[in-house]
């Protein structure tokens, strides 16, 4: 026996050590994180090391800041000039985007969409990584003492980074989106195709579970879909680099993350997300440019004829009004759409001044059925509207839910649910209705 032990001592020691570690693995797998012991030893290790690293990183940052803020000021004036020029350009861009945002909010309010807003964030500094290729986790210098909990989203202004995987008192572990065990609900921005963004051992990110018969163009942006309940909807994720047929009827779409995951220094941890309805009240009056922007190519549409012989569009809801098929001097407002109206397209009858008819005030009225002059004339050539006949009151295709004395109204898209507070609030005798309390536009 002694001879055996002596002869195979090395192998026996190796086997004993391996056996102990495998048993340890098995225990961990059976009781992953709540067993206490594993969690505790990790906690001890991370807690012991992160203060040192925090101190080193912060000292390094301090020295760097001292250099860049006080000593290295060469070129600051030139940079300042360039930044000012850039700000001027961005202001112009911002004006355009603000218009788009207002339009989007109006549409959302019409459809009773709830928007997710990032309410509060905590800035954190990246102080470490896993140090191995198999795991791409990061360590940040904020932990449970700062209000961080697991599954919080971690983002940068450039795009999403990942989520909080583990929390320690003064540090947290972030699972980035390019880690092989990461998964993020994502969608293509233009085509709205939804899939799951997954990482890989090599650090490449792919958008999975999009059918191979879909067309995905390289360069298309990828945003969060909000389906994972971690990231708010619409945050930038990355751009499609390549798309090719993969296994199992799905496309193999490679995505380059928007956030510079390999150069992260500071990140934002999203600590609170709220959902609220966008408010159309504060959007301000519509302008002529909005109306023109919302116009779509006109396609003649069918109209229903009611029992009285009046033409009536499918989506019309305001009782007592009937389209008369001619520009009868009313100006159905673009922002007024009845139930069943298509998102993004309001009633876009052009408000050319129809002499002799009541000029309809422009109002933003989500859910309002229509804006009419209150007449229920079956004919466009009624005396009251006669002078306006022939003016450019043209309803566009898809602009349903509006009854006007203008051109033929169009059928409502069937996919869209009507707004709950729609038609009944628009009595026919009122020239314009504004249930949302929007101010009329002159």
């Amino acid at each position, binding site marked *: 026996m002694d001879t055996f032990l002596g002869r195979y*001592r*090395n192998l026996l*020691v*190796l086997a004993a*050590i*391996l056996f102990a*570690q*495998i048993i*340890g*693995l098995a225990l*961990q*797998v059976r009781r992953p*994180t709540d067993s206490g012991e*594993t969690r505790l*030893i*990790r906690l001890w*290790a*991370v807690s012991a*090391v992160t203060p040192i*690293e925090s101190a*080193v*990183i912060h000292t390094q940052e301090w020295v760097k800041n001292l250099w860049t803020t006080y000593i290295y000021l060469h070129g600051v004036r030139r940079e300042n000039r360039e930044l000012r020029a850039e700000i001027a350009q961005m202001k112009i861009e911002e004006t355009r985007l603000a218009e788009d945002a207002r339009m989007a909010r109006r549409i959302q309010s019409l459809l009773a969409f709830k928007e997710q807003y990032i309410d509060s964030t905590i800035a954190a500094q*990246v*102080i*470490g*990584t*896993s*140090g*191995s*290729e*198999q*795991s*791409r*986790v*990061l*360590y940040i210098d904020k932990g449970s003492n700062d209000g961080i909990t697991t599954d919080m989203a971690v983002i940068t202004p450039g795009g999403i980074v990942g989520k909080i*995987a*583990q929390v320690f008192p003064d540090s947290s*572990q972030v*699972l980035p989106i390019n*880690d*092989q*065990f990461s998964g993020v609900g994502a969608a293509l921005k233009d085509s709205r195709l939804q899939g799951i963004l997954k990482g*890989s*051992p*090599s650090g490449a990110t792919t958008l999975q579970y999009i059918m191979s018969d879909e067309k995905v163009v390289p360069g298309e942006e990828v945003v969060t879909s909000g389906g994972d309940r971690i990231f708010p909807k619409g945050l930038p994720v990355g751009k499609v680099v390549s798309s090719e047929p993969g296994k199992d009827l799905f496309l193999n779409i490679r995505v380059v993350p928007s956030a510079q995951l*390999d*150069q*992260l*220094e500071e990140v934002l941890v999203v600590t609170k997300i709220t959902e609220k309805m966008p408010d159309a009240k504060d959007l301000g009056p519509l302008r002529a440019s909005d109306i023109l922007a919302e116009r779509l190519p006109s396609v003649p549409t069918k109209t229903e004829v009611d029992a009285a012989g009046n033409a009536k569009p499918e989506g019309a809801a305001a009782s007592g009004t009937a389209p008369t098929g001619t520009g009868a001097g009313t100006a159905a407002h673009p922002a007024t759409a009845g139930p069943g109206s298509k998102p993004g397209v309001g009633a876009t009858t052009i408000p050319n001044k129809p002499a002799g008819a009541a000029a309809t005030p422009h109002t933003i009225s989500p859910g309002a059925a229509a804006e009419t002059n209150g007449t229920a004339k079956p004919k466009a050539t009624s005396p009251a509207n006669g002078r306006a006949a022939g003016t450019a009151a043209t309803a566009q295709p898809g602009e349903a839910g509006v009854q006007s004395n203008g051109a033929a109204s169009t059928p409502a898209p069937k996919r869209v649910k009507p707004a709950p507070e729609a038609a009944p609030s628009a009595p026919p005798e009122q020239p314009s209705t504004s249930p949302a309390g929007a101010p009329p536009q002159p």
Partner: protein
Amino acid sequence: MSTRVMPFRGSLTSREQVSVYEFSWAAIIFIPLVAVLIQIFISVKVRFLPIVDLPFMVTIFFATARRNPITGCLTGCVIGLMQDLFAGPSHYLGMYGIALTIIGYLASSLGVKIDVDNPGSRFLITFGFFGLHQGVYYGVAHYLLRQGLQWSWSHMAISALANATIGIFVYKFLDRFKQK
């Protein structure tokens, strides 16, 4: 001079005896610790560092220098477990531990038989053992833990090449801590 000599048990080199080096306790404790810390924290700034596996190199260095399989596998076990502590949430303690234990054992066993002090053999040993290290890690993750890891031969070969090349310089630096 604390270098010992021991006879070859399978003469694979022209030499009849190989040197067994010893290290101070400070070196034994701090070199692996610093290697792991560098691996974890410097890689925030130097993003190619995860390809380079410093704890793995340190394990090979100690194992081949001390040429004792028991201390080799113990060194590998400790360094691997330290590395495990800082890995991701899906990473169980012991995955690197098992891989480096085997590497430590085999490297020290090999060190008994061949000369591992010249750069050429160090390059080959590091290259070969890196592949084995990745293979053991993959085997543990795939077969024991049922984790869906992807295996890439090209990536493994590039990483092994990088480690073997950088390892020559790392070993040269670590040679200073050998006690003579």
